[in-house]
Structures are given as C-alpha cells and as structure tokens.
C-alpha cells in the first residue's frame, strides 16, 4: 500500500509540476452551499442568486465594493441637485449586453420602472419606493427624480435587486441570465453547478479568469474533502465549525471577515411578560455573549450591543450596556414581579448558529429562572409562524440585509416593537443624505434600541472564507452576499 501511495504521489507531483510550468491557471471552481432557485436577481430574495451573478454577470448603476462602499458601475458619474431630489446619471458608452444588443439609457429606465411597477415581484421593492420618475435625457444620460430626498439612494441602486436588465431578455433571465458584466452565463446543471465564462466584449477592465464554475455542495462534511481533493478551490462562505480541519494546511488560506448579519435573540415585544422593559433587560443581562460566540460560531463572531455591524462607520459600541450579570438579571425579574421565573418558547430555524446558540441561551436563561422550551422549525415554518403570524416568544435569527436598522420602525414587523421616538429618528435618517449627520442619527438609533433592550443583541455573523493559497482577489468581508470575481486571479 505504501509503495502504491508513493508511486501515485510521484505521478501526481509530476503532473502538477507540468501544469505549473505553464501560465497561471484561468479556471476556478467555487463551492456554494445553497442552489439559487433561479438566476434573476430582480425577482427573488435568495442570497444564492447574488452569490453567483452579482458583479459577475449583472451590473447596476452603482455597485457595492468589497468594504461596503458605493462605487460607480454602469453609471460613470452622477450629480445630485441641491434639494437632494434629482439625480443625473452619466452612463458608460459602448456597453453591450451578452446577447450583443447595446446598453443605453432606455434599459436603465426600463429596469427601474419594471422594478417599481405595481405588478412587480421584486423582493426589495422598497429600494425603489422613493423614485418619482425616471427620464431618458439622451442615450448616455438618465435623470431620476425622487419624491423626497433619500440618503441611501445611491447605495440602494447598488443592490443586486437593482441591476440593469434588457427588455428583450428580462423575462428569460431566470433560466438564461443576460447582463452587461465581465462574465456571461454558460450553463446551469440543476442541482450540480452553474458555469460562467469570460465575456469577450466587456466594456470595463478585463477579468483574469476564463471560466468560473459554482459548484453546489450543501453538506459541510462534504466541503472539506472537496477542498482537500482539489475538486473545489474556494469556499467563500465556509462552515465555521469545519475550519479546524483545514486551518493548518499550508495549501489553503482561511480568511475571517465581517458580514452584515446581526445575529439576535428576537423577542416578541407585545407578548407578556416580554412587554415589560425589565424582563427584556433581564434577558440581556443573562446572556453571556462570549459563551454563545464560542459555542455557536467557533469563537469567530464579533459581539454587538445594538443592530449595527461593527465594520460600519456608524457603529457605536454598546456591548458594555448589559454585561453578563446573573444577579442583576434576577433583580430585574423581581422588580417585574417574576421572581419565580416563567416559561416561554424558543423557536429555532435550521442554521447551526440558531440551533447551537439556542441550546446555550436556554441554559443561560434557566439560571435566572426562565424555562425555555426549544422548538426547532424549518425556514418555511419560521417564515409562516414567527415572521408572518408573530406566533412566538423568542427566536434566533441573523438579519443579513445591509444597513437594515430601519426594520425596527416598520409597522407590523415581527418584533412587535413600537417606539415613536425611534420612528422619528429613522424618518429623519431617510431624508438625510449628509454623511456626518447620518452617522449621528444612526448612533442615536442604536442607543434607543439598546436602551429598550428590544431584542437580545448577540454577535455579528463572521464570514469564514477558505481558498487555495495561490488564489487572490476574493472578498474578505461580505458587505453584501456576493462572490465578486472581477479581481480574482491565480498567482504562482
């Protein structure tokens, strides 16, 4: 057996040496855990759609960069009127869709009007709510008029749901996506893989890869051997619990970055006894974030004290407001008249952060006399019972949408939280485009949420990427859920 292995290893080495002597590789196989239901980013909320297509196949007026910044994309520049209501976008010229048709201002008007139309099923229709009208000034200029100034408008236009599509192909993008990006769609073997190839007539900086295959590997236990055998060269979103198996292997790089996923213990704020501030504060005091992070995210998450990513410029560190303090928590429960504790349910969706975190939280709350019944649910049930019908006491979920602190001001949202003072801050924020002022307002909003202990703020979901050490240019952080391949290349 030993001899066999030596012979085989020698053969493999010879083969490897033969290939590395040639030019750098231009193909890449990327592992993803979830298969997109279809390939149209403007018609579904599934993150897996953007993970394959964003920035690679489809482009928007603006785009989100590796650190969450807004960058020009199909719009090379723009100007904003003094009242903040009129945006004039100057478009790149000479841009072609993958089917050979020209891109111009008409496509922009078509895409934006389609997304905000009455019968639109765009999953993020709210992004376009402020738009009053879209006008074509000339083939390379678009004028967008807003109903009211909107501070986040340029950011909104960088979402995957706001990419520009062509009228001729908009209806068939689900199966055969046609965009303006540096890669064009080649093949989708359902259940197996999606292949993109370099587009020859790309308008921007040429990409390094000729071919990129996204291979669907749902099982974390299968991901490790797929990497080790070389079948797959990159897992941009890797299971934190499996990192130990590849961490010390020099062939791979393990990159820990940040996401926009605030992982929280959601509380039904209208359901007694959670309608009492003391009870919610008691829960916050009872939570030991370090233990939860160690147990549910392999120690990689960053603790949060309110609903904001620590990577954000507007982040305020409020983790000190409710340090782990069982005595204090018991005192608060006593004040609320619940010194004997109470029973409640904790509904847990499938991700391991929820299932593992739930067990730890249940044991932590038992220390202050809160007896939790754990109910595991599937996503479909979670959406139905918890999110839509609000039939729950506590649940754990990661809110992965970027800059989504406004969800706490939404009417009828599943937190059942209602605070006019908070709503006023968000209202003002929506009308403000001045960066400094926005940061101040965001800071205030974070403080209000923390003071009210609306939910139990746990940690920011880490982004764990593992890829071949010779690979460069993949995103370290995940300001949005995307696998931007435009800068990715092999080095020797």
């Amino acid at each position: 057996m030993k001899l066999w292995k030596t012979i085989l290893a020698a053969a493999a080495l010879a083969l490897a040496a033969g290939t590395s002597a040639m030019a750098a590789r231009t193909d890449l196989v990327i592992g993803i855990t979830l298969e997109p239901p279809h390939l149209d980013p403007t018609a579904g909320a599934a993150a897996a759609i953007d993970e394959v297509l964003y920035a690679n196949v489809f482009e928007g007026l603006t785009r989100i960069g590796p650190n969450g910044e807004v960058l020009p994309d199909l719009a090379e520049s723009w100007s904003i009127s003094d009242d903040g209501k009129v945006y004039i976008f100057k478009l790149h010229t000479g841009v072609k869709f993958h089917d050979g048709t020209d891109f111009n201002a008409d496509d922009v008007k078509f895409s934006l009007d389609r997304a905000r139309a009455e019968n639109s099923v765009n999953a993020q229709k709210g992004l376009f709510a402020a738009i009053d009208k879209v006008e074509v000034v000339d083939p390379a200029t678009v004028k967008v008029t807003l109903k009211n100034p909107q501070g986040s408008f340029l950011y909104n236009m960088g979402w995957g749901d706001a990419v520009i599509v062509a009228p001729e192909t908009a209806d068939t993008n689900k199966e055969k996506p046609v965009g303006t990006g540096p890669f064009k769609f080649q093949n989708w073997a359902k259940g197996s893989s999606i292949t993109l190839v370099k587009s020859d007539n790309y308008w921007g900086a040429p990409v390094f890869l000729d071919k990129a295959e996204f291979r669907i590997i749902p099982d974390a236990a299968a991901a490790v051997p797929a990497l080790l055998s070389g079948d797959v060269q990159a897992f941009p979103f890797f299971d934190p619990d499996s990192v130990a198996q590849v961490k010390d292997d020099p062939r791979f790089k393990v990159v820990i970055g940040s996401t926009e996923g605030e992982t929280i213990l959601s509380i039904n704020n209208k359901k007694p006894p959670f309608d009492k501030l003391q009870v919610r504060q008691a829960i916050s005091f009872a939570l030991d974030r370090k233990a939860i992070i160690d147990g549910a995210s392999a120690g990689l998450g960053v603790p949060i004290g309110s609903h904001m990513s620590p990577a954000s410029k507007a982040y305020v560190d409020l983790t000190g407001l409710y340090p782990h303090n069982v005595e204090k928590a018991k005192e608060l429960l006593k004040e609320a008249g619940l010194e004997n504790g109470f029973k409640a349910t904790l509904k847990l969706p499938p991700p391991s952060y929820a299932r593992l975190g739930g067990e730890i939280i249940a044991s932590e709350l038992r220390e202050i006399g809160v007896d939790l019944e754990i109910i595991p649910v599937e996503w479909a049930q979670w959406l139905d019972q918890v999110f839509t019908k609000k039939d729950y006491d506590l649940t754990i979920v990661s809110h992965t949408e970027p800059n989504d602190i406004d969800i706490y001001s939404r009417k009828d949202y599943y937190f059942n939280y209602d605070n006019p003072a908070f709503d006023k801050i968000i209202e003002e924020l929506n009308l403000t485009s001045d960066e400094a002022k926005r940061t101040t307002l965001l800071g205030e909003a974070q403080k209000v949420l923390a003071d009210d202990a609306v939910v139990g703020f746990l940690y920011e979901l880490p982004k764990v990427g593992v890829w071949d050490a010779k690979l460069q240019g993949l995103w370290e952080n995940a300001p949005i859920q995307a696998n931007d391949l435009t800068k990715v290349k092999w080095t020797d």
Partner: protein
Amino acid sequence: MTAYLLKRLAIAVVTLVLASMVVFAVLEIIPGDPARLMLGLNASADQIELLRNQMGLNAPVVLRYLHWAGGLLSLDFGRSYTYSVPVIDLVRERLVVSLPLALMALALSTIIAIPVGLFSASRHGRAGDTIAMGAAQLGVAVPNFWFALMLIYLFAVWLRLVPGGGFPGWSAGVLPALKSLLLPAVALALPQAAILARVTRSALIEVLNEDYIRTARAKGLPYRLVLWRHALRNAMIPVVTILGLQFAFLLAGTIIIENVFYLPGLGRLVFQAINQRDLIVVESVVMLLVAAVIVVNFIVDLSYAVVDPRLRGR
C-alpha cells in the same frame, strides 16, 4: 393468471388515486408559503399576494387538486413554483443520475450478497458463517454517511482515483460519469448487501432443511448442484421481495448519500422542494415514486411466477 393480473392492476389504480389524495392533502396542511419564501423578509403583504396569484396558489383547494390530478393523467406534471420550469424536465434531469445510481447499487449489492449468503448458509454454524455474518452485522450497523466519508477520504483525497463528489453529466462522457457514481454506489450498496446476504442466508438455511433436499442428496447429486439448482431457486422469493423494496428505496431514499457526494439526484430535488415549499414538485415526484413502487411490486409479483412455476397456473 389473467384474473390475478387484472386484480393486481385494479389494486394499483386504486392505490394511485388514494395516494394522490393523501399526498395533496398532507402538503396542503403543512405550514409555509412558497411566495413568502421566494420574496424573503423585505417583501410587503401586497407583493406576496401578487406572486401567489401569479403562481395560481389562490385558487380553491379542490380546484387545484383536480387541475393537478387531471394534469397527471395526461402526463402533465405542472410547473415548478421556484424554478418556473416544467416539473417533468426537473425530474428527467435528476433521473439520469438517480436511476443509474440505483441500478449500480442494486447490481453491486446483489453481486456481493448472493455469494455471501450461499457461502454462509452452506457453512451454517461454522467459523466462515460466523465471520461472514459478523461482517454483515457491521455492514448494517455502520451509518452510510460515515462509510461514504471514509470512502471519500480513502479513494478521493488520499489516492485521488475518483472524484470526491459531484456529477459531471453524461455529456462529459460515459466513463467520467460512471466513475463519479462509483463511490456513492458502493456506499449505498454495502448496507443493502448486508441485509440481502442475511435474508439469502436464512432463506437458504430454511430450504436446506426441507425433505426434498435430503432426497436430492440421497439420490447422489453433488452438494454444489443441490445448493445452486434446488435450494437457491426455492429461497429466491424473500430475496426478490427485498430486492424490489430496496430498488424503491434506492431511487429516492438516498438523500443523505446524495448530500455527502453532492449528486443532483431525485432525493435532493424532493428535499430541496420541501424546504422551498415547491409543493407541486414534491407532489408530482412523490406520485412518480408511488407509481414506481407499484410497478416494481408488480414486476416482483411477476417474477414470483418465474421463480415458482406453481404460481403460473393461478
């Protein structure tokens, strides 16, 4: 024989109709809305209503059942909610993986199990029997996903003889496709072979105690001939029954193995469809499987007649 066949056929039709009702009703009851799942957390109630209308989910239940069942009769399985392509296309794409995999696993398990069963039965109670059945016991007890992972580490990661998972498609050539199905087929076949070997052994032992075996031996036939011609044939009925059941299981009950090897098979299609509440896919695939089980059972019934000439007269 004809009356027997007609009766079997009538039972099959009634089973299909009842199964369609049960399947539809059960999936109607489970909570979850495919439209909400597609649009995610930020969608408004109006939008979800709009998509439900587009998907045809707002029609009355009875009407939807009749529409679906009527479609099945004309072999129209409807359109997937999430993929928005005909269900039949999805099934066809998956069957080209699942069917060869199931057949390979079945062939492997038979090739391993029958000789082992024969060997054990003919050495009943001796050391060879104990060792073989001990191994079979182990084969039943080892979880197949763990066994699959061990196979991957040995043959894909360490020796690099076969890919560690995935399916290149038949378009990549027959050999690479078969190669990628080899490890999953072995992982599936081993526990099945273990069960089958035990069944073969016990059926054979029972038959070997029959009087006619003693008679055959007494008239001077060599032991080997008695074993193969007289005993094995008579022991085949339970073996064939188990084989039929195993085939139905292998066709769609392989979700775990399909996940470990990330194969785009039928089991994973159903699993994914359940998670996304793509009810029409679940309903149609389950009905197809019900039909497959019925057909396989029918073939098993027929094969009894081949194995046992006495049944032919009925």
